[in-house]
């Protein structure tokens, strides 16, 4: 509003000035008109005629024309103007400064320019708005030129108004567009440049300058100043040059130097801009930073390469499946393992690649996994190229796109065949270990006595008749110990608490009332915080002990059988031993009778023969006594005995037999032999057995003396040894140990029971019996027993 008022005031002043000028001009004109009225009177009519003519012309010009007086006052407006403004009277136009003919906003500069032009007389050209008849202002360019008369005086101004509205608006829009474009160009998150048709840099946007850290001038030197990476420069120059010639769009991937000297990859695209005549007026160049992209691509390529490498070098079979489960990819190992091409592997459900036994379950699980989208894992056998099925662990994971849809399944098959086999073997080993424990009635345990923690094997629990839920404690074990064995149990426990290895033997009474003989060992394997950890094994030896008793009994029976056998074998010898004195008795008795019956009776002779009879009778009696002792069935009876005596008796019994076998007997009895404690008869049986064996061994020896040496001696320490040495066929070392097996025999007629029984007898005396080959022919059998046998221990 205030601006409007100020304008009005200015217009007012101007009008006043214009008014005074006009009045002066008018006055001058009136004077001249008056002066020359007469001169012109004649010419007036012609002039009026002429005036009418150019008025007609002006009115018909297809343009807006006004004629102003030299002072600028409107003198004439043609029909176009009148038609436009709707103002018919020329006076109205004289008031253009105040009546709104011109747009109020334009008044000032119009007045200024107009005044200036009037003053200088130079033509004017003003752009301003003129009100149309309907009140709408439109832009016009008002151009005015002076019309001078012959004297050079300005007489009039001729003004043409050109409708400028469309153009003005177009220009404004263009300017606006340009402004916006520049804004856009500078706001583009990219680098933009323009080139001249010759390819020189014309302009670059701010981003280019910021990126390069240089000026436009420097940008123009891009081909020489290192803006483009040296390696990429030749190519860039080449491409741009070609494009400039061909006018084709170009694209270069090149490295451009950043302000900090680092080159980054750019995609540079140039597009020609042509004018309406098709001539290239400019190149627009867009430079896109693709460094990150390029690096990402490289990284991706690298990672893909690596992935492929990994997939192919994974010690497993990798299978990629489509979302619906169809096999899409199998890695090298997979193809190699199955020995089938990918196409074939798509038909794994039918072509035997999967073990038939595993297939139905696999199909079911697989279908379910695919349907549910859940990762899967199972074990399955796959057929190798050579037809061998191997166990695999198959694990599958779905790959989902950002929206969560499954795009692919990855399936890794790991060969677990060996592991599976090992597991089976382990299971078998464990089973057999458990079986072994069960069969041998041997249980194992790991015990931390201090913490009272006991880990028992199944068999240990079974022996104690505990179920697996039983919490084993030392007290619970003790509660089961047979009252008679508690003292021994407690002392073993006390010893174990000190961290020593222990052996133990005690009886337990189970909940069922069964009495079991337990024997075992426990070793300290570790000390944890000063507490001994024991690992041990125990056995239920009840049956074994029963068996031992039975065996002992059997052994006694066997010993008896052996004795009887010996008796039968010795029958001849026995008969001989008895028949000899009997024979003497009978003969002597007969002789005695004959001597007494003689005449005269030979009393002295009879007495002599009677004495002989008695002597032979005693001799027979002795033999019978010895035999009875030797062959009577007696229990194991310990007594203190002299092995020399015992051996002599055996030799006495065997002597005739040995003689018959033509064996040369030599005996060496130690003088200082101490008595031993043992079963006289059983030890004599052993000696007899050895002597008979020696004799038998020499039965077929004819090329050398059949020598038999029987020796007694004291061994180092408190032992006594009896040695029987022959010069028979001998025994080879390999057979040496088998000799003592029951029923092993080298004799066609023997029972082979002798040596094994002999050994068991010697062992009952805590002695040992052994054989060794001689340096020369024959073998030597020996046994040695301690002077005082260790008392029989519990349970033996």
């Amino acid at each position, binding site marked *: 509003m205030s601006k409007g008022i100020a304008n009005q005031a200015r217009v007012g002043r101007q009008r006043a000035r214009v008014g005074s000028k006009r009045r002066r001009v008018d006055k001058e004109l009136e004077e001249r008109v008056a002066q020359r009225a007469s001169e012109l009177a004649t010419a007036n009519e012609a002039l009026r005629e002429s005036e009418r003519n150019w008025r007609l012309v002006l009115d018909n010009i297809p343009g807006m024309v006004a004629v102003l007086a030299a002072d600028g006052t409107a003198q004439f407006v043609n029909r176009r103007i009148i038609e436009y403004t709707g103002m018919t009277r020329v006076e109205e136009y004289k008031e253009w400064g105040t009546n709104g003919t011109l747009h109020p906003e334009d008044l000032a500069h119009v007045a200024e320019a107009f005044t200036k032009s009037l003053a200088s007389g130079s033509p004017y050209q003003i752009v301003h708005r003129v009100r149309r008849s309907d009140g709408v202002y439109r832009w016009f360019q008002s151009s005015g030129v002076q019309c001078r008369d012959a004297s050079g005086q300005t007489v009039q101004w001729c003004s043409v108004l050109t409708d400028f509205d469309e153009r003005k608006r177009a220009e404004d829009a263009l300017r606006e567009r340009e402004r916006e474009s520049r804004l856009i160009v500078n706001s583009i998150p990219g680098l933009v440049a323009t080139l001249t048709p010759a390819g020189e840099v014309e302009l670059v946007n701010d981003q280019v300058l910021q990126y390069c850290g240089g000026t436009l001038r420097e940008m123009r030197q891009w081909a020489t100043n290192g803006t483009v990476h040296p390696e990429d420069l030749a190519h860039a120059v080449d491409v741009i040059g070609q494009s400039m010639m061909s006018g084709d769009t170009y694209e270069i991937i090149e490295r451009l130097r950043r302000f900090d000297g680092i080159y980054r990859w750019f995609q540079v695209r140039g597009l020609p801009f042509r004018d309406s005549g098709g001539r290239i007026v400019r190149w627009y160049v867009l430079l896109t930073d693709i460094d990150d992209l390029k690096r990402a691509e490289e990284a991706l390529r690298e990672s893909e390469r690596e992935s492929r490498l990994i997939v192919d070098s994974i010690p497993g079979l990798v299978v990629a499946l489509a979302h619906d489960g169809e096999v899409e990819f199998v890695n090298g190992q997979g193809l190699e393992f199955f020995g089938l091409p990918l196409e074939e592997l798509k038909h794994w459900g039918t072509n035997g690649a999967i073990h038939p036994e595993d297939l139905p379950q696999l199909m079911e699980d697989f279908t379910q996994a695919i349907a549910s989208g859940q990762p899967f894992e199972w074990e399955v056998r796959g057929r190798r190229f050579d037809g061998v099925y191997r166990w695999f662990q198959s694990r599958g994971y779905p790959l989902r796109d950002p929206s969560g849809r499954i795009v692919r399944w990855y399936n890794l098959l790991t060969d677990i065949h060996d592991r599976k086999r090992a597991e089976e073997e382990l299971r078998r080993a464990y089973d057999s270990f458990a079986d072994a424990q069960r069969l041998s009635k041997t249980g194992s345990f790991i015990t931390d006595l201090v913490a009272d923690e006991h880990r028992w094997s199944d068999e240990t629990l079974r022996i104690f008749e505990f179920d697996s839920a039983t919490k084993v404690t030392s007290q619970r074990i003790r509660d089961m110990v047979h009252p008679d064995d508690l003292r021994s149990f407690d002392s073993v426990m006390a010893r174990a608490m000190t961290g020593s290895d222990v052996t133990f033997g005690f009886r337990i009474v189970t909940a069922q009332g069964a009495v079991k003989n337990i024997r075992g060992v426990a070793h300290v394997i570790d000390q944890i915080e000063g507490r001994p950890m024991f690992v041990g094994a125990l056995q239920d030896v009840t049956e074994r002990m029963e068996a031992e008793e039975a065996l002992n009994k059997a052994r006694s029976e066997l010993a008896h059988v052996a004795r009887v056998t010996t008796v039968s074998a010795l029958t*001849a010898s026995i*008969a*001989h*031993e008895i*028949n*000899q*004195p*009997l*024979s*003497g*008795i*009978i*003969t*002597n008795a*007969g*002789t005695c009778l*004959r*001597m007494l019956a*003689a005449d005269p009776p030979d009393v002295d*002779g009879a007495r002599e*023969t009677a004495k*002989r009879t008695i*002597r*032979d009778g005693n*001799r027979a009696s002795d033999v019978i006594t010895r035999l009875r002792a030797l062959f009577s069935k007696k229990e194991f009876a310990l007594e203190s005995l002299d092995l020399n005596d015992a051996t002599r008796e055996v030799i006495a019994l065997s002597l*005739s037999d040995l*003689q*018959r076998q*033509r064996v040369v007997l030599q005996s060496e009895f130690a003088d200082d032999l101490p008595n031993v404690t043992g079963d006289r008869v059983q030890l004599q049986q052993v000696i007899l057995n050895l002597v008979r064996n020696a004799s038998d061994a020499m039965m077929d020896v004819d090329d050398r003396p059949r020598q038999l040496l029987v020796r007694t001696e004291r061994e180092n320490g408190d032992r006594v040894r009896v040695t029987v040495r022959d010069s028979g066929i001998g025994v080879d070392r390999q057979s040496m140990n088998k000799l003592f097996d029951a029923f092993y025999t080298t004799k066609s007629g023997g029972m082979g029971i002798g040596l094994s029984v002999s050994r068991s007898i010697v062992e009952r005396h805590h002695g040992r019996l052994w054989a060794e080959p001689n340096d020369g022919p024959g073998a030597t059998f020996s046994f040695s027993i301690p002077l005082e046998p260790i008392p029989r221990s519990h349970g033996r």
Partner: protein
Amino acid sequence: MEVMGQQPLVSVVDDDESVRESLPDLLRQCGFAAQTFSSAEAFLASEALDETRCLILDIAMPGMSGPDLQQELIRRRHQIPIVFITAHSDESVRPELLARGAAECLFKPFSEAALIDALNTALRMR
């Protein structure tokens, strides 16, 4: 030990001393001359070898056994009738010995009558 020409000499070979003690007395009571030897070898080495009318011979002896001596005598063509005596009551040896020409085989202890019968048999064989 040549006694009275007509008394036939009976030689006893046995390693058992009681036999050597007792048997000669009985033989003499029965009217024989008797001589004893403790081994076959001793008998073979003696002069009695040629004079013996009958031999009472133990089977089992150390060194040369009774049967061995029998064989040896056959080999030397000394046809001395033999009465074997043995303390080993093994009947199986008897037939073999008789087959080889022995007059009898007596098992100890034998009766006086059995001995005299055997001796008579032996002497008749001559």
